[in-house]
């Protein structure tokens, strides 16, 4: 790990004032310190934000929940409001990382995790995300874990978070504060597709700090399910994951949300498929048709064609489990 200067401000404004192009905010540190140990990130200054008053949950005037950026992943997953009203989010968080890491990792930091593409993590090989313009060995290399949607010539990496897949389906809102003041970002707009600037994972500016994540009132608690498929039974990143949420009127779907993890540079949604689902009747045929429609746009690489077939089955199963009340195995 490189030497760095350390500060621990007491107010959000002081933290933002301290920030610079060579500084990084640190909360849980579970990803940042790992990247620093690998010499992939070498900040000159770490700004410890764990003393800031951003560790609470509160109810919003519109009936939603405001989650402070410093709430730990474990505290969030096991908070009674989240377990009761947003079980999709609770399930997604508990499907990720390990109990130790969930105790350390913050809500805001979870959004800022970097890809686990093995070429990105190997400083000895080129990577456009790490070093713009150097090339992408993954596109023609071992790309079993890589994207089947939204990739570019320059980058085929996937976003590693489970929590973010649920937040995408729930249409959360990201609250940030920077030198230019406060702003909110719709979750669907927060993370970027790689395009020709894969070094940028999201829309956050250098001086901006995530202060909270806002959940809208609709939590789809009756009919939601998070399904994660990975190489081992626990503690591994998703090959494919599905956050499915339905609002039902008897057997008729009133509203559907569907977000996929492990398949793109950001949680992947297809609004056309979600719209088509509303008004349809719950059945295996309906869900299979939705999966086929969503996956007709997939662009698999040499070694990840299996993700298309895996995602098809995972979508049908997640939607079925959601329709059955999220409890089916």
């Amino acid at each position, binding site marked *: *790990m*490189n*030497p*760095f*200067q*350390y500060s621990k401000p007491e107010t959000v404004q002081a933290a933002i004032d301290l920030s610079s*192009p*060579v500084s*990084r905010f*640190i909360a849980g*540190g*579970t990803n940042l*310190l*790992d990247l620093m*140990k690998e010499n992939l*990130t*070498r*900040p*000159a200054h*770490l700004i*410890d934000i*764990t003393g800031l008053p951003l560790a609470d*949950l509160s109810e919003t005037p519109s009936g939603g929940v405001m989650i402070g950026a410093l709430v730990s992943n*474990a*505290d969030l997953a*096991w*908070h*009674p*409001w*989240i377990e009761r009203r947003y079980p999709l989010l609770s399930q997604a968080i508990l499907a990720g*990382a*390990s*109990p*130790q*890491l969930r*105790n*350390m990792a913050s809500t805001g930091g979870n959004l800022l995790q970097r890809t686990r593409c093995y070429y990105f993590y190997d400083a000895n090989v080129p990577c456009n995300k790490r070093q713009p313009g150097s090339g992408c060995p993954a596109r023609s290399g071992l790309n079993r874990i890589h994207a089947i949607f939204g990739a570019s010539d320059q980058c085929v990496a996937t976003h590693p978070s489970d929590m973010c897949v649920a937040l995408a389906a729930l249409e959360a809102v990201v609250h940030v504060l920077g030198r230019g003041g406060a702003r909110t970002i719709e979750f669907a707009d927060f993370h970027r597709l790689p395009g020709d600037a894969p070094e940028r994972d999201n829309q956050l500016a250098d001086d901006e700090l995530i202060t909270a994540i806002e959940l809208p009132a609709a939590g789809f608690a009756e009919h939601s399910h998070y399904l994660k498929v990975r190489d081992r*039974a*626990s*503690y591994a990143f998703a090959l494919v994951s599905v956050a499915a949420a339905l609002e039902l009127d008897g057997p008729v779907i009133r509203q559907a949300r569907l977000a996929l993890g492990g398949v793109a540079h950001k949680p992947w949604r297809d609004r056309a498929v979600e719209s088509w689902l509303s008004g349809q009747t719950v059945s295996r045929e309906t869900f299979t048709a939705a999966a086929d429609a969503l996956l007709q746009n997939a662009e698999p690489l040499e070694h990840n064609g299996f993700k298309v077939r895996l995602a098809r089955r995972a979508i049908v199963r997640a939607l079925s489990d959601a329709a059955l009340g999220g409890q089916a195995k």
Partner: protein
Amino acid sequence: MSATLSEATQASFVRHPIRLTLNGQVRELQVLPWTTLLDLLREQLDLVGSKKGCDHGQCGACTVLRDGKRINACLTLAVMCDGVELTTIEGLAGDDALHPMQQAFITHDAFQCGYCTPGQICSAVGLANEGRARTGAQISELMSGNLCRCGAYNNIRDAIEEALPLCPQPQAPEGEQ
């Protein structure tokens, strides 16, 4: 993100004072910002029970308890432990008796080489504090952050299943604040 540092900036790399309760004793220490909690324990304080397995948060051999919650000491900066209460494997036993979790690991022969064992035991005590695991399957899932290359998992699970009811019960469920 890389940067060149001015001499003035480099001169500001000072040791930071921290004060923490370590295995029941108040300790006042001076630490460099880039020293991890694991290196502080092993290299500066000679508490070598916590092990450095992967040093990347993947194996759990460095697991310790911070304010009763299990964390990876390898991905924690020592300077960020100011004011915390820390328990390592060296601090679990009482004056004249092992912690119930330690005793259960012996009873069930829950190890072979023993390298992962301090982390497994600290993690299992953290599991007990969380109060979320009851069945063997839940124990396996919630112990997935601790790898055992000898493959003693079945005995580890049996030991934890036996010791869980003997551990102090959690005060209140998470998030009830």
